[in-house]
């Protein structure tokens, strides 16, 4: 009798049903535009343990934003995209997403986001490419046998044709971004697990022999490293969050010497034309608030030319600027707000003059962008 009552009750309120594949959500934003850049992907990291890394896509031709496309395009992948997205790149015809806590690089078709395969790399961080090879940094190298349990990091080289790792090269502790200039690869060592003994060097790897040839001291807790058209490297240091502030360093790859230091914190950056766009959040222990900055650095003069590129007051609504990308042709600025890390973020599109064109809700912790280029006569991007 009670059983029946319960069943009736259950029918009245809500019963469990089969778990559906969630469809993507589409919204119109911005104006239609046709250039060789047909769209961009945005990788949402998702907070650790939530398995909520997700992929959004903006299509310029139709001015539509599609949220959460991965499961719709790849409905047969168990547990979807994975846990904590950390990097996103398009190389050749493929889209590569680094899913940090799922210990893998997810390889998809760049036009459709259809899954091609995966490369398992434990605690993988950032990608770069040259020729037929892709390179990925990982925190998860050999563990020292002493009591410190220190774990050296490495760069793994994989063949983009076979998706197999064919060589690894040990670098410093907890390596983050890496970039290639000529025949040298520069890897930013953070030492983030070694607190308070942070790393303070870039590792330089000779690409031909794939061996580390030297370390260049820069500053503690390095994070990002990007090359500009002048052969300079822009390297960010997170500082130690206490006494040593976060800064931006400039290094000449001809001499491998640090040539400049700018007193700005950088969470994420993008270099387009002569400008380095940076967003940052610096914590103020006195006011207990985040101080947010949106800077532009002239890469030729190496001076901060703008301290707030948002000119219409929208910055007051942004809680936690997290990722930045600038359209290479229109110079529109895309900026993400990660808010409280556990609820959906927002993507803002600003004109080069710094006024907001549009904004859209994203997944959790929107962070990494990849522009999709295509000759105009080819078909427009479509999902499956």
């Amino acid at each position, binding site marked *: 009798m009670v059983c029946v009552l319960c069943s009736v009750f259950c029918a009245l309120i809500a019963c469990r049903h089969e778990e*559906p594949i969630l469809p993507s959500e589409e919204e119109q934003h911005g104006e239609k535009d046709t250039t060789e850049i047909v769209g961009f992907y945005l990788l949402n990291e998702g907070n650790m*343990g*939530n398995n909520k890394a997700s992929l959004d896509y903006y299509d310029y031709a139709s001015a539509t934003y599609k949220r959460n496309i991965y499961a719709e395009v790849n409905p047969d992948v168990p547990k979807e995209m994975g846990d904590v997205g950390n990097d996103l790149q398009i190389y050749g015809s493929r889209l590569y997403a680094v899913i940090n806590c799922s210990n893998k690089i997810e390889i998809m078709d760049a036009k459709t986001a259809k899954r091609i395969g995966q490369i398992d790399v434990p605690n993988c961080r950032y990608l770069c490419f040259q020729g037929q090879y892709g390179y990925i940094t990982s925190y998860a190298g050999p563990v020292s046998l002493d009591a410190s349990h220190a774990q050296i990091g490495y760069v793994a080289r994989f063949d983009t044709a076979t998706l197999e790792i064919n060589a690894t090269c040990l670098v410093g502790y907890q390596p983050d971004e890496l970039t290639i200039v000529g025949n040298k690869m520069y890897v930013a060592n953070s030492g983030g697990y070694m607190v308070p003994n942070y790393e303070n060097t870039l590792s330089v790897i000779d690409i031909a022999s794939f061996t580390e040839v030297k370390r260049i001291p820069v500053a503690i807790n390095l994070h990002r490293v990007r090359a500009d058209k002048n052969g300079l490297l822009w390297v960010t240091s997170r500082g130690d969050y206490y006494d040593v502030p976060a800064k931006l360093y400039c290094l000449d790859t001809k001499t491998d010497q640090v040539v400049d230091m700018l007193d700005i914190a950088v969470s994420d950056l993008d270099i387009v034309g002569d400008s380095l766009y940076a967003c940052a959040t610096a914590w103020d222990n006195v006011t207990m608030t985040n101080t947010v900055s949106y800077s532009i650095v002239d890469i030729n003069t190496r001076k901060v030319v703008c301290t707030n590129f948002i000119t219409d007051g929208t910055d007051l609504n942004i809680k936690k600027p997290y990722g930045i990308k600038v359209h290479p042709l229109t110079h529109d600025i895309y900026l993400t707000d990660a808010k409280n890390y556990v*609820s959906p973020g927002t993507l803002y599109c600003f004109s080069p003059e710094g006024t907001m064109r549009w904004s859209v809700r994203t997944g959790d912790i929107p962070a990494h962008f990849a522009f999709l280029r295509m000759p105009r006569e080819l078909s427009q991007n479509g999902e499956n």
Partner: protein
Amino acid sequence: MALCAAPVLAINDTALDSIYNQFTIDEVEVTARRREEPVIPVQKLEGARLEGLSTQSVADAARYFSGVQLKDYGGVGGMKTIDVRSMGSHHLGVFYDGIEIGNAQNGTVDLGKFSMDNIEELSLYNGQKSEIFQPAKDYGSAGTLYIKTRRPKFSSDKSYNVHVTMKAGTFGLANPSILYEQRLTDNIHLSANAEYTYANGRYHFRYRKVFPDGTVAWDTTAVRQNGDVQAGRGEVGIFGYLPEGKWHVKGYFYASEKGIPGAIVNNVWKNSQRQWDRNAFVQGNFTKTFVRGYDFQFNAKYSNDWMRYLNPDTTLMYLDNVFTQQEVYLSMAHRVAICGGQAVNNKLRRTDINWDISVSADYQWNYLQANLANFVYPERSTVLAAVATQFYWQYFKAQASVLGTFVFDKIHQPSQTMPTASKQRPQFTPAVFVSYQPYLPEQLYLRAFYKRIFRMPTFNDLYYTDVGNIALLPEYTTQYDGGIQYDKTWSQGTFRMVSLKADGYFNQVKNKIVAIPKGNGQYRWQMMNLGYVEIRGCDVNLSTTLHCGKEVFLTVAGTYTYQKAQDFTDPEEITYGGQIAYIPWHSCSATANLMWKGLCVNYAFIYVGERYTNSANIPVNHLQPWYTHDMSISYEFPLKTGQRLHFAVEINNLLNQQYEVILNYPMPGINGKGIVKIII
């Protein structure tokens, strides 16, 4: 025998106990008749009903209370905490045999660690216990769960009891326990209890998704790994009875090693984190009526809790952290009867005016050590002082209390020779409870309460390396509750007992302590007093006992909870007005218990409605409802040699539902266990 003792009066334990001990059937009636209503709504699980629920831990049993949400990470060793009326698990005080279980480090108690083996009664109070003669600590939480272990009770011709129990079941569970009770003298009783639990924690779980047309998109089954647990518990208690008083002293020791099964995410189907716990405490209580109209009680406790967390997983940062917490607790409470004076009188007439005042003062000291870099070794002294009064006049009952809280923290930075002291602002928090019985002698009560209380920021909130925020203020809750209750009992006929309780409430949680991202590094957090939550809800409890024929009794009980718990933190965000994480709008439970002589058949149903994992109530955060059906059958019979044997079989989640309480933590499907108990 008159058993209509108002719970606010001291109940003659031994008299009640001897009745409990005689017949199981009697227990139902005793329970029924004892429903003399307290001013403050209480929910109790005890006796046959508690025994009939297939529960391994206190957390499993607490699911049957209305207004309660369990956070269960799955498995025998998985962490389980409860949240009462959506105010957050930090606001629940958990008391073990009358004294609060502290956790100054993170403020919540893992109820999964408390086995049901030796538990006699669980009671949950919204607001505070309906009692003014109690330590100041008992006024200090928004909701309170009392775990009462078994007290020795002897039939007149015996001076000892021995219970030997063996439980075994799925997840590789082996769970022997022994209870030994000895009458040392007429007035001093000893109880010793030991238990060992082993489980490999392995169970199948299944994830599956379908296309809109119902065809399967993917379907995968795996085995839950690293959910093993090994735990030992020992307790020794001495209970003394004095003329007009009683005392007890208790020692408790628990040690465990367990795997932390962790979240199941893409490409990660097992985890390897481990946790070790060692909890020990000694506590005591002394209560006496010195002169008529003046009662005194003293409570004391020392506890030492050690915890080690190890992450050996090389794909994550290596961690091997050890935390040691110590607590000293001393409390004194006095009650004076201003008029009426018949404080220890079971036959108190309601026409009398009865007015009591109580004063209590507690001192508590906490200290936390850890092997973390830049750790500050926090030390906290808390002084609690409470004044309370209770007034009965005709059909009207009222209680009011004010609690003063004075907190002094010190941190010992290794780099500094002198500790740094900081003082929290003194806090004064009131509570008022009223109840009215309009139609004497009908057991119909109308009641209402208001309570304002707070939780202190924990040591982790304030001082955890890099995350803690020393400027945090307490997190406040304000509760408004109005309710009705009707009870009726009959000594003949089919219906023996009917009880209905319904409460509507409005709660506010202000200055809610939440983690917000900070600075330019990845996933760096800072604790802030940012959140604001409003909760509107109602709880309904219904129970009835039927006499269905010769010696056949059926007890059916149901609870229903509706909660609208909204996040009103930030009007600019999508989360504004959304239902907060993991709180269902609807939840309910039902239990049925059929008894015939020594045979007992139980059925239990739990339903938790749809929820969201975040106050952004969007499809990606949606979690489906879940519901489980549990059955158990037990049979107890006397042997010719005088001992009694008890057999039970339990089957839980009969329909093998695959569900999650917490996102990415799959729960077990159908599972069961068998129990054999010898009572000597």
